[in-house]
């Protein structure tokens, strides 16, 4: 399950290399949104250590 999560984040981060070709702030904003979303997920999901 965790491997799927890691793979999904890495693949999402690679999207601009293939799919975003504009010369505006699109790539910049895209990477910001992906990392911010992953940070929010990290903050709100339950960690293993919390189940000890």
């Amino acid at each position, binding site marked *: 399950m*965790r491997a799927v*999560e*890691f793979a999904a*984040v*890495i693949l999402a*981060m690679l999207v*601009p*290399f293939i799919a*975003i*070709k*504009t*010369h*505006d*702030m699109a*790539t*910049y904003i895209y*990477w*910001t949104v*992906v*990392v*911010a979303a*992953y*940070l929010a997920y*990290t*903050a709100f999901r339950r*960690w*293993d*250590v*919390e189940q*000890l």
Partner: protein
Amino acid sequence: MLTLPSGGGMLNSFETLLLFYAVAGTAIALYARKFGVKSDDEYYIAGRNVGGVISALTYAATTYSAFMMVGLVGLAYASGVGAYGFEMFYLAGTLMLLSYYGPKIWKLSREYDAVSPAELIGKRFGKSTAVAMVIISLVALIPYTSSQLIGVSLVIERMSGISFMTAISISAVLIALWAFIGGLRGVAWTDAVQGVIMILSAVIAVVYVFSLNPGFFGQVSEIGDLMAVPNRIWTPQLFIKLTVPWFFFALTNPQVFQRLFIPKDEKALKRMVVYFGIFGLLYTVLVTMLGLMLRVMAENGDFPLLKDRDLVTPTLLSAMPEWMGLLVGISILAAAITTANSIILSLSSMVSRDVFKNQMAGRASILVLTVTVALFASTRPSYIVELAVMSSTLLLSIFPLILALIHTKFSRGLEAVLVSFLTGLVLRYLKFQFTGVAVLAVGFAVLLAANLTKRGKIG
């Protein structure tokens, strides 16, 4: 348009601020000392009793160095949005590693009563492997720490009449003094204050530069393919070369790895990771935005078009209003000091616990290591970014052992760490593009071979 000053006027103000900074930091370190520095546990990991907010700020201030405000601003200026992607890959990787491995390492460090990172490795893989990890850390982190001193000394030299060599000496004294006096608690508290200064000064710098060119978002396409990846600079090869070593930074660099030992409980650990993530995201956005805004201004003729990317920030500082230049200059000094003294303290903990098993040797090593770093910095070797990446590449040789510690019952690690480290040294010397990938591949292969062979013999 920015106007560059003809010089003078800044010297006394900067020296006064520097003196205030030195006195304030020393006072904090002295106060922290009252909470205990006698045992190694107290001195090197603050008795495993640090709250979430301070843990996060010391983690952030240790991670984010002078490279951000000097190196990354220049990299974004010279190469565009790829610099942001490179740093965002690092942050995403760090969040992954910390949220999954952080709790396991925090728990293991308590079960094994480990104070230094090498001690944790040594409990499973033996003393020789721990000593090898210390030597690798020393070799790898001297250039990285030196890069901090180079960055900050360039800024001090540019902003005042203080020479490059004197600036290195001042930085070195502050690094050794605060680490020596207050141990990790002193370093963590000074880190926390300086972390706030780093964020505030970055916000002020971005607001100031944006006020000079409010049309930035509409004009950004003027820098063309620098706003997309891949481009003529950020080729997939360069991206892999720079990103792989930094992606695993959280588990391979002892100064940040050791910070996983310090949160007082599970809640503090989670807060450390999440608050660090918020800090990292905000700081990276600010710093790279600064580089991109200055590049657009340079294309418009409102800022010098510089060939040496390491001069972008110093040029900006000399053109800012004096109070702002002083604040940002001090924030760069803070970023360098917080990273460097954390590294020196972490290396000292390994020298003390894993090599000499002697407290006095550990304390003395703070001075010896700082002098070594200052001497290396005085030669100004290569580019700042290249130096930092070389360190992270060499430290990748430790990564297979850390994964094996968590996921396997393997007990042989010396062969893997030595062979992969030597592979890293040789390939860096040969300027091989994918040294980081090769270090990891060789490390895992040797680790598997050594442990499976051993099992075969036993069976």
